[in-house]
């Protein structure tokens, strides 16, 4: 039983804690429960593995490698296809444990629509859109790196479901806030910020990339400062609309989770850290509660966006470099 002060409302869904197990890290919900002491109930929600219309084999090995304070991965969306997930896997899940969120991926806008439609007709609690997939009709450029394409994907998914839609934003773009605004207008109910940063690791002896896919997504503590800045920027867009954010990227303990909440997140994603410590969820929950005690707060939601920015000397001068001084103010207002 989690502390009632940790309960949040996320798009009308009750999360027992603000912690969310991230897509791609916890399989289809059953894998980590083999570890003695692990419980999905320690998380407010669990995002299932990325799912496409057809089954996919995924990328060749090596799919992962360790890097400084993190890791690269290029799994390649290995999954059994939406029909198998809906018909064979969802019936095995215990929906009293936590909120289960589907993660929808595709290589065309039509595929996103169709996968979302199948999940709409299922007991799944919410749908996360992975807009970082390559668009096969546009030379493989990721949908999520272009705000118009991002909005198209979100609009297609919106047309396919009434369930809460969470758009997982990519950090591999110039202006994440503008992208968030476009996705918001296209019907996104919430955001997950951020997906992995694209990176590469080289085997100097072989003179080849380490990862079979040549490049992969960087995760782990190495990306936390970037993730915090992106949450901060997206929060400037979301705040006035009351749109919640799942802050994620390098969270490995309660202190990290608190930083994301304060910056503007309503919930906090945990992924890579689980590989190092599979039983860290209870400690993070307890750490957040201890902070609430120390600061006399009655609910974790009070922390969201409670960040107090330093006054910037450039504020009073010409606004020549707003992003350097106050990252959030770089968001175009209209």
């Amino acid at each position, binding site marked *: 039983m989690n502390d009632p002060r940790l309960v949040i409302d996320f798009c009308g869904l009750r999360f027992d804690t603000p912690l969310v197990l991230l897509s791609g890290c916890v*399989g289809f919900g059953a894998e980590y429960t083999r570890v003695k002491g692990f419980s999905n109930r320690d998380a407010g929600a669990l995002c299932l593995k990325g799912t496409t219309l057809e089954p996919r084999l995924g990328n060749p090995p090596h799919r*992962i490698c360790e890097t400084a304070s993190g890791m690269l991965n290029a799994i390649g969306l290995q999954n059994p296809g939406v029909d198998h997930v809906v018909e064979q896997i969802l019936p095995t899940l215990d929906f009293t444990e936590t909120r289960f969120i589907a993660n929808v991926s595709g290589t065309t806008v039509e595929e996103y629509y169709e996968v979302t439609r199948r999940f709409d007709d299922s007991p799944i609690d919410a749908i996360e859109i992975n807009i970082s997939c390559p668009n096969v009709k546009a030379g493989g450029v990721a949908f999520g790196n272009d705000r118009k394409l991002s909005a198209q994907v979100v609009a297609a998914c919106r047309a396919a479901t009434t369930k809460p839609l969470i758009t997982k934003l990519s950090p591999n773009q110039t202006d994440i806030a503008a992208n968030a605004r476009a996705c918001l207008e296209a019907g996104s109910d919430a955001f997950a910020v951020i997906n992995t940063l694209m990176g590469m690791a080289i085997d100097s002896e*072989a003179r080849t990339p380490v990862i079979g896919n040549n490049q992969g997504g960087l995760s782990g503590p190495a990306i936390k400062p970037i993730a915090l800045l992106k949450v901060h920027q997206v929060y400037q867009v979301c705040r006035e609309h009351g749109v919640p954010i799942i802050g994620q990227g390098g969270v490995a303990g309660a202190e990290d989770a608190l930083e994301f909440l304060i910056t503007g997140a309503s919930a906090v994603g945990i992924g890579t850290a689980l*590989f190092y410590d599979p039983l860290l969820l209870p400690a993070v929950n307890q750490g957040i509660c201890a902070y609430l005690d120390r600061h006399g707060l009655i609910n974790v939601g009070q922390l969201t966006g409670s960040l107090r920015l330093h006054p910037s000397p450039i504020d009073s001068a010409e606004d020549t470099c707003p992003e350097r001084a106050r990252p959030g103010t770089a968001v175009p207002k209209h």
Partner: protein
Amino acid sequence: MTPSRRERGSNEEMGHNQPLYANHLKIYHYQHGNHFLAAMSSVVESICTGIFLEDAEILKQEACAGDQFLLCLKAPECARYARPGSFVHLQCDPRLPMRRPLSLMRASPRDNRIELLYKAVGKGTRLLALRQPGERISLLGPIGRPFQPHPEHPRPLLIGGGVGIPPMIFLADALRSDRRFRPFAVLGSEVPFPFQPRPSQYLVPGLPPQVIAAMPLLDDWGIPNRLTSLSDFPGCFRGYVTDLARKWLEGLDKSARAEVEVFACGPHAMLEAVATLARELGLPCQVSLEEFMACAVGGCAGCVVQVRTKQGPAMQRVCVDGPIFDACAIFG
């Protein structure tokens, strides 16, 4: 599952020869955990007991020849449920962001102990080698499908190469207590063996008479064995493990040879040669594989290997679908 090559995540251990895969193959067979359990009833016991996170005390850390280390840990749950072929996922050092998978050499439930033999080759294992008795290491295990000897094949042939030797010792330990099996082991190494070889007390038909060096532990257990190397170690067979294995197999009459089942762990090229030999002679063969690993519990699909299934090619996770695979499914 060779500990040295199992030492993931640092560039020096990365494999160089990658098979070519189509990135978007649509034929697919995903081994979801629950279905897998139902299919593998004989494995249910070891997997259903679960995977334990233990704060293991280092009881012994002993340097052997060739940068090899013998590590003894106090890990009661792991010791209780480990099976030959199981591995553990270790936090080698707090400075590293990822764990390292290492195969088990022995497990003693009575003493709450597990033993690992690893080679310090990468960042992780080199830091692990610095850890001292009395310190604690976070351990996740036991993990993986174990070797499955079949009584209808009462002559197990155990082939271990380099740091692929430890899982063979674990398997030998399990087989020696089962009178139905008459195992023979071939162990190869190009660095000095992590034990002092001695002349075997067993005569083995089919082998050159000068090939007498054996591992004392296995010999004492009543398991005939021989050592191979290209490094001119005294009493060892000069050649590959598969060369000596072939001589042993050819020394058996036809009906005895049909009773052989091959179990192998070692470098990929060695496993491929073993699989080829087994296929040529029509013998069943189980191999222990390795791949870089992140979660080690089946959650991330980071450690997959391509296997052949009746439904077509599939990507299976080395951590929980393996690390033991049917050689035919891997090498065809």
